[in-house]
């Protein structure tokens, strides 16, 4: 535990001359000073003491757009060869430490002896009004990070943050995948066309009719499918197409069953993939028409009879090679008829029988031809015409065979034309269907890959979520007690200060639960007049928010700075009304007995409230008030104690602090007097400022007051001479408060008493006619502050101790 004993500023900020602030009995300090009178220089001194870079946050390390660097740490009126120092005395456990830190333009770092003090200041303990509310207005995560810094858990907080960043990246990937999947769905929907639209009757009908078009079938309504195809108007010649329709109907029904349900990519695409085989078969079966049969037969005939038959066996007329394969099918059948006719010719003797047989075989040939034409879907009227024409030829006998053949050949050409046109249109449709199905299958593969990616990503997300929960739970454990302790103290402070509020608000400071999505948070909420869970800014007045912020900051400092129970409050009540200033003063003087408070204020009302609150326990507090500020000398203090009677009592009772009290009295007179007479002591050794200050100050005063009668007094007045000599020697008693008295051979209580009485006599030398003890420096002369008379150093016999 570190207890502050004293802090001294020399040449630092608003203190061109040395000033010491002491904390008797580990006590506190209440300092009043108007604006610009050196009050904040004291809080700056503490900030400087614990600064790792030997500067103030608002000054920065060097000049910049918003900073000025370390130069302003040094008082601007100091000669160039004077340095600026802040020295501090404290006890680290039982060990007294005194250390001086120089405020130089180039920081030498933290002095080693100061290290325990700096290390114990986990949290900045200087609380300034303007910066106070930052914690309240921060986001929960910022508060969490700030506490993490104090907990030494910043690395863990960063770990939590990193894991969340990874989660956000994974979530981004999840969104991208979802978009890709959505795009795939749309693509599949467009790609699968009729399949995806099977819920809509008209597109289905269109799709079905498109499929059935090659078979010259058209359905007017889907009920045709549902009610069976009995009602369909099919010609006899379309037996194969009927079969194709039946197949298509079966496939369609199967697809309808599969599509019934949630339309997903799988339900759309999988049937397509399976239907591909069906479509192939369907196309093949539609294409497989009688024309193909004819083609096969014709090809076979051509290969068998080419070059073997070059002329008509009936009439001997030579005929050329056929150009179209299908012709051969018909030629084959004609050949059969020709063979029959040839047989008849050989039986010319039995003409009649032959003619009958010719007619029979001719009729058979015609019948075969007509059936083929029908299967080839040649227009029925045309077939009738052809049949009629051929029969008339046949009736003309063998001599008409060439005509018969000629006409048959023309018919074969017609058949070829039909075949070509049908094959082309069916091939296009067939190819389109296949390409479509392949594209669908490709989509299905993309979907499979996407699904696999989603599966792997989901697993990673799951693992990261487990890791996050594990880390959050573990790290949270360290925050729980801290936040609870801070919350308890904050609420206690807030309710005590704001107890007079008309509408009291219940304040809570809570750690975001570890299981929450973002567990890195500290919520500050209020329950205001039945409105729970509100932010403080929502309902609290400016003063209430300020109280909450002050309570929080004090609670944080007290929690973390357990080894350094010290708080500097610099103008923290400016936004309060008188009533709140009063309650704040009461709380500060009653709830913070275990903390050394340094309360700096320019608020006269608050200062009075504090003094009122301090009365019963004033022994632990030092109350100081800056009366004036002089650019060359710095703040001029009016200390309320100790007075000379108290010092005398302490000396008489053998109080161990008597030496210290006497020195403080001594300095309290010496410094203003030095200021009044224009004496400026040098500080040749900053490491031991007290010893040199007072001795040098005394010499300066003696020298400076030579013109006011000191010179003749020293020459002619033995008593004055003796007093001055004693005082010159008595400077040693300063050490008694800062070291081990017995080891240094420091003076006894008797020595201190003698020196103190000499001091009082010496003080009494500086008088004026009206007995005012305070002088001021004006127009290069020292005059009485009250009557304006010039200072005189009186004979020792004429002096008395001022009241």
């Amino acid at each position, binding site marked *: *535990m570190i207890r502050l004993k004293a802090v001294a500023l020399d040449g630092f900020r608003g203190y061109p001359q040395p000033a010491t602030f002491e904390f008797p009995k580990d006590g506190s300090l209440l300092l009043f000073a108007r604006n610009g009178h050196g009050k904040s220089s004291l809080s700056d001194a503490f900030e400087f003491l614990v600064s790792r870079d030997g500067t103030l946050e608002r000054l920065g390390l060097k000049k910049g757009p918003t900073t000025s660097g370390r130069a302003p740490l040094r008082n601007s009126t100091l000669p160039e060869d004077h340095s600026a120092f802040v020295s501090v005395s404290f006890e680290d456990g039982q060990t007294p430490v005194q250390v001086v830190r120089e405020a130089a333009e180039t920081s030498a770092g933290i002095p080693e002896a100061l290290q325990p003090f700096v290390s114990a200041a*986990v949290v900045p303990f200087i609380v300034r009004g303007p910066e106070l509310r930052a914690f309240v207005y921060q986001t929960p995560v910022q508060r969490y990070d700030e506490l993490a810094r*104090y*907990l*030494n*858990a*910043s*690395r*863990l907080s960063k*770990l939590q943050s*990193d*894991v969340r*960043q*990874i989660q956000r*990246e*994974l979530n981004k*990937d999840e969104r991208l995948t979802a978009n890709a999947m959505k795009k795939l769905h749309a693509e599949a929907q467009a790609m699968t066309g009729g399949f995806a639209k099977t819920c809509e009757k008209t597109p289905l009908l269109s799709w079905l009719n498109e499929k059935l078009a090659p078979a010259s079938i058209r359905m007017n309504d889907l009920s045709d499918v549902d009610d069976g195809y009995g009602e369909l108007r099919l010609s006899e010649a379309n037996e194969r197409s009927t079969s194709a329709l039946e197949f298509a109907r079966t496939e369609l029904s199967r697809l309808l069953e599969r599509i019934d349900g949630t339309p997903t990519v799988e339900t759309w695409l999988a049937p397509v993939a399976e239907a591909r085989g069906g479509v192939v078969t369907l196309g093949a079966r539609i294409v497989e028409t009688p024309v193909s049969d004819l083609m096969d037969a014709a090809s076979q005939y051509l290969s068998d009879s080419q070059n073997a038959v070059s002329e008509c066996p009936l009439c001997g007329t030579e005929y050329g090679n056929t150009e179209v394969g299908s012709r051969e099918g018909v030629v084959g059948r004609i050949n059969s008829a020709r063979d029959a006719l040839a047989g008849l010719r050989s039986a010319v003797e039995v003409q009649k029988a032959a003619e009958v047989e010719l007619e029979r075989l001719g009729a058979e040939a015609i019948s075969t031809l007509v059936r083929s034409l029908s299967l080839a879907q040649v227009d029925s009227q045309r077939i009738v015409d052809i049949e009629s024409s051929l029969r008339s030829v046949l009736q003309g006998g063998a001599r008409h065979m060439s005509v018969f053949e000629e006409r048959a050949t023309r018919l074969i050409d017609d058949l070829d034309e039909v075949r070509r046109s049908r094959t082309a249109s069916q091939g296009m449709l067939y190819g389109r269907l296949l390409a479509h199905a392949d594209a669908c299958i490709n989509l299905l593969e993309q979907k499979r890959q996407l699904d*696999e*990616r989603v599966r*792997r*990503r989901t*697993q*990673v997300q*799951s*693992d*990261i979520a*487990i*890791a996050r*929960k*594990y*880390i959050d739970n*573990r*790290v949270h*454990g*360290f925050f729980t*007690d*801290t936040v609870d*302790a801070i919350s308890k103290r904050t609420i206690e402070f807030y309710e005590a200060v704001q107890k007079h509020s008309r509408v009291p608000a219940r304040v809570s400071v809570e750690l975001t639960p570890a299981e929450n999505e973002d567990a890195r948070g500290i919520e500050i909420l209020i329950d205001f007049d039945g409105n729970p869970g509100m932010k403080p800014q929502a309902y609290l007045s400016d003063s209430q928010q300020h109280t909450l912020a002050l309570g929080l900051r004090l609670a944080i400092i007290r*929690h*973390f700075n*357990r*080894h350094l129970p010290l708080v500097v409050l610099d103008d923290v009540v400016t936004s309060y009304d008188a009533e709140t200033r009063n309650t704040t003063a009461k709380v500060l003087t009653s709830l913070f007995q275990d903390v050394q408070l340094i309360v700096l204020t320019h608020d006269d009302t608050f200062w009075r409230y504090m003094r009122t609150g301090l009365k019963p326990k004033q022994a632990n507090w030092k109350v100081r008030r800056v009366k004036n500020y002089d650019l060359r000398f710095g703040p001029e203090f009016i200390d309320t104690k100790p007075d000379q009677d108290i010092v005398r009592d302490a000396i008489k009772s053998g109080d161990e602090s008597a030496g210290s009290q006497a020195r403080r009295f001594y300095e309290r007179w010496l410094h203003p007097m030095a200021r009044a007479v224009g004496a400026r002591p040098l500080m040749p050794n900053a490491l031991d400022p007290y010893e040199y200050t007072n001795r040098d100050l005394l010499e300066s005063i003696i020298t400076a007051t030579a013109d006011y009668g000191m010179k003749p007094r020293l020459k002619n007045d033995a008593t004055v001479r003796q007093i001055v000599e004693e005082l010159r020697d008595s400077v040693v008693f300063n050490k008694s408060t800062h070291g081990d008295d017995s080891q240094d051979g420091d003076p006894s209580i008797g020595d201190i008493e003698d020196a103190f009485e000499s001091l009082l006599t010496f003080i009494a030398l500086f008088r004026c006619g009206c007995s005012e003890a305070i002088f001021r420096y004006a127009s290069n002369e020292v005059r009485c502050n009250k009557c304006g008379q010039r200072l005189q150093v009186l004979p020792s016999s004429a002096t008395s101790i001022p009241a």
Partner: protein
Amino acid sequence: MKEAEPPLIPPSQHADASSADGTPTQIDATAVFYELKNGLQVAGVGEGVAAIMRETVFGDGTKRWAQTMERLRSVIEDDS
């Protein structure tokens, strides 16, 4: 330079032992860090992801999460 791994410290000893009332005000973050690092798989994190986290999230450097994402993406995209 690779950071030397300290031995695992029981959670109860992470607290600053010199606290006035024994309640921790500051923690031994390094020890907790390594405890978390080595406890990932025990906590149920899959071996692959745990290994990546140990090498990246718990590693050195300022772009740890970026490195982690790079590694995790190769797992997701099955670059292997």
